[in-house]
């Protein structure tokens, strides 16, 4: 130890004498240290994410079935892609996904931004209430989603009871999870309940990033509150809103756990979002090649959106 520090001491003195040489030596050790630090992570990700991904790409061109590992594997080219991309059933699943994604994102953005706007008024006790509001998004979507099936029970469920109480309809006259028209909304409600706080939190950061002096200048110019909202608050919070919208969009595009437990895709296939279709093909019909192709289609979509997300992230970061 002692030796070590003395030698560095010498190095330090040497810096004063001959900076170039020492910087090169130190730079070299830094470089190897950098790789030493980064490599384990990259290796792990290569092994558990990238290798499987490459394998999926390979499987998507074959007729491999996971439940018949010993059957001969045939090369099919892009057959699976063509059949998926012309299949009206898969197209229908994409529209179920679209319904889910669009409505959850719209509801969460409106509610989340509204809440953030109100919390930003800094009323007494806003910290405590904010923490309470944030709770649902931290909980397990599966475990809580499962409990919502209880709240949605036609006769005994609290949700139906409260709706009946407010609207005057009979609590057993509608089934949130069993009805073809209502079940797509049942999953939207649970998702909005869980993830509105997420949008709220990001919007709140956006609102708080607007410096006070801009509002003060607007006051001096006698701009109305309404005008201030539309020309200062909203435009300046917009990058943050975009960030939240993109992230919720990506997450809900691949939503699986909550929907699987609430409806499992049913009734019929009215709530069969893309991930459920994929899970059925991969782990129930064991059409591994086919589902690999579908997985790649979903993955490329998510990857494309992730590119845009990171761009939005960097834009917010520079604020």
């Amino acid at each position, binding site marked *: 130890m002692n030796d070590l520090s003395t030698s560095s001491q010498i190095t330090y003195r040497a810096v004063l004498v001959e900076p170039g040489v020492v910087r090169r030596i130190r730079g070299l050790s830094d470089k190897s240290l950098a790789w030493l630090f980064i490599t384990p992570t990259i290796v792990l990700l290569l092994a558990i994410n990238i290798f499987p991904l490459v394998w999926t790409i390979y499987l998507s061109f074959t007729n491999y079935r996971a439940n018949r590992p010993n059957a001969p594997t045939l090369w099919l080219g892009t057959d699976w*892609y063509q059949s998926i*991309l*012309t299949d*009206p059933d898969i*197209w229908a699943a*994409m*529209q179920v*996904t*679209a319904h889910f*994604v669009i409505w959850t994102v719209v509801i969460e953005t409106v509610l989340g931004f509204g809440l953030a706007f109100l919390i930003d008024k800094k009323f007494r006790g806003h910290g405590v209430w904010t923490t309470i509001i944030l709770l649902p998004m931290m909980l397990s979507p599966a475990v809580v989603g499962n409990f919502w099936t209880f709240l949605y029970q036609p006769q005994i469920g609290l949700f139906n009871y409260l709706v009946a109480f407010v609207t005057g309809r009979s609590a057993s006259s509608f089934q949130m999870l069993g009805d073809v028209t209502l079940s797509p909304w049942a999953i939207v409600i649970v998702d909005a309940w869980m993830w509105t706080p997420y949008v709220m939190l990001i919007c709140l950061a956006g609102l708080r990033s607007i410096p006070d002096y801009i509002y003060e200048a607007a006051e001096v110019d006698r701009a109305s509150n309404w005008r201030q909202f539309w020309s200062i608050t909203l435009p300046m919070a917009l990058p943050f809103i975009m960030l939240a919208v993109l992230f919720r969009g990506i997450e809900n595009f691949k939503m699986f756990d909550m929907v699987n437990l609430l409806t499992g895709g049913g009734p019929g296939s009215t709530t069969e979002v893309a991930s459920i279709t994929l899970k059925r093909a991969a782990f129930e019909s064991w059409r591994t090649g086919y589902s690999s192709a579908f997985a790649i*289609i979903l993955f*490329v*979509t998510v*990857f*494309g*959106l992730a*590119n*845009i997300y990171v*761009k939005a992230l960097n834009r917010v970061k520079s604020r």
Partner: protein
Amino acid sequence: MTLDGNSSMPRSGFTDRILRRGPLEAIATMIIAAGVVMLMQPFFLMLYSWSFATTLFGTVMFTLVSKVRE
């Protein structure tokens, strides 16, 4: 989409201005967005069929474009 402002740059030739990262990235973003919309729209099966190719093209373009000089 807002593009990166380049007001400080002197005006230069057409190709020079187009082949920069900002506009190209914006185009790639649009293509990806278009692909996603095509994937999930309920109107034309044809658009759905071509959505994957569009998204893939946009994503590859985005990745390549991010290497272009700023």
